[in-house]
């Protein structure tokens, strides 16, 4: 498990399950030094020292496409194997039990909570940069400085649970990032959050790279 190439570029597999615009995450991780492949290839995913689950649009279509590609089982297998794993936006929401957006479709259930519509007291979707409020120390949020802003585009957010590591204020605290063991996830788009976002991606690449070396 976990390939770090000779030139030190860790192999990251961005799961390609056939929905549009998964390229931004791919480009962001490449920018911070990973050998990033947008792929559905089981062998390549098994070789990767980190796995990324992106997602844009809506929970239902994303979850259906992930299952249709058989990548739900691949994702769960890699998570179970302890491989560093990063979910982004809908890719984060899919790690939860389910979403109000598609009540008849199960999520992956890595986290027990559900994903709900933002309150009707705020504009939906939240399309803006917002300040990250870290609720605990975590390597994802290392070296971001005191005033870290990231870009959000979403109408739904995960209920708070023990896995929350950061929130943003949007009509009250909204789950912005979660983590447990080898699974990290962000509701916001680190690949669209300028230098702050690239630092977060870089923190994940460093984690994946270090984890691969330990195993090797």
């Amino acid at each position, binding site marked *: 498990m976990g390939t770090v190439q000779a030139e030190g570029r860790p192999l990251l597999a961005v799961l390609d399950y056939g929905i*549009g*615009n998964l*390229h*931004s995450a791919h*480009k*962001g991780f490449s*920018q911070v030094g990973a050998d990033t492949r947008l792929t559905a290839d089981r062998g390549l995913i098994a070789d990767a020292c980190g796995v990324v689950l992106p997602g*844009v*649009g*809506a929970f239902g279509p994303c979850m259906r496409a992930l299952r249709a590609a058989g990548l739900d089982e691949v994702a769960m297998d890699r998570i179970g194997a302890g491989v560093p794993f990063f979910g982004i936006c809908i890719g984060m929401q899919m790690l939860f039990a389910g979403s109000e957006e598609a009540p008849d479709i199960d999520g992956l259930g890595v986290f027990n909570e559900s994903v709900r519509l933002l309150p009707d007291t*705020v*504009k*939906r*979707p939240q*399309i*803006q*940069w*917002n*300040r990250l409020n870290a609720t605990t120390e975590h390597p994802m949020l290392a070296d971001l400085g005191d*005033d870290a*802003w990231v*870009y959000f*585009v*979403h*109408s739904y957010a995960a209920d708070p649970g023990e896995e929350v590591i950061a929130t*943003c*204020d*949007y009509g009250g605290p909204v789950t912005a990032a979660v983590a447990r063991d080898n699974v990290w996830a962000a509701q916001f*788009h680190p*690949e*669209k*959050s*300028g*230098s702050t*976002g*690239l630092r977060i991606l870089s923190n994940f690449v460093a984690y994946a790279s270090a984890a691969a070396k330990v195993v090797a």
Partner: protein
Amino acid sequence: MRAIRVIPCLDVDAARVVKGINFVDIRDAGDPVELAAAYDAQGADELVFLDITASSDQRDTTVQMARAVADQVFIPFTIGGGIRTVDDARRLLMAGADKVSVMTAAIKRPVLVTEISREFGAQCCVVAIDARRVNGSDDAFEVYTHGGRTRTGIDALKWASEVQRLGAGEILLTSMDTDGTKDGFDIPLTAAVTAAVDIPVIASGGVGTLQHMVEGVTDGGADAVLAASIFHFGEHTVADAKRVLAANGVTVRPPN
């Protein structure tokens, strides 16, 4: 917390930025990637590229431009102009654009908004509305196309509500009365549209001073302010705009 976005707009023709950009530190004033990076460094929250390429044979260059920008600039960007079909939208989104903006094609065939929204999500479906006052009135506005030259007979407030219902994630609202005047946004228009819809509204057209941006937010209710010439000629940076907004009590992401 509601944070107001500041969005520079760049006109591109066959993947070259046009309309005289005049920054001191720019080597190639026509290079969209270099300009996007410069605006990112100034603290721009997003970018809008307005594609004015006349020839449809050259539209592939816009797709290539989207790819080049997405490769090197890590803030969200929208491409508008000439998008007529779901396939047009798909090519730009797959190349790395975060959103597409539709206008004339949505007026001709409103279901296009629903198609793009269903296929890619409302978050990437911006509808641009160009409006003029009806006989100078400050409470009746008509939708125009072709740079404000062609009347449509459509009421701008009804159209704004309609595109929200059809699935638009955001409205890019330009006053064709104030555009290019540097007299400030059309505040009654902006206020009427922001009151008519629940989705975010980007105000555009007429910014001549940084105070105009403040007015667009505090009086117009805009969620984002878009400007072109005030930034392009180096008169003001995005960071300047954000400092003035913040000094007037408007929450913004602080410039780097």
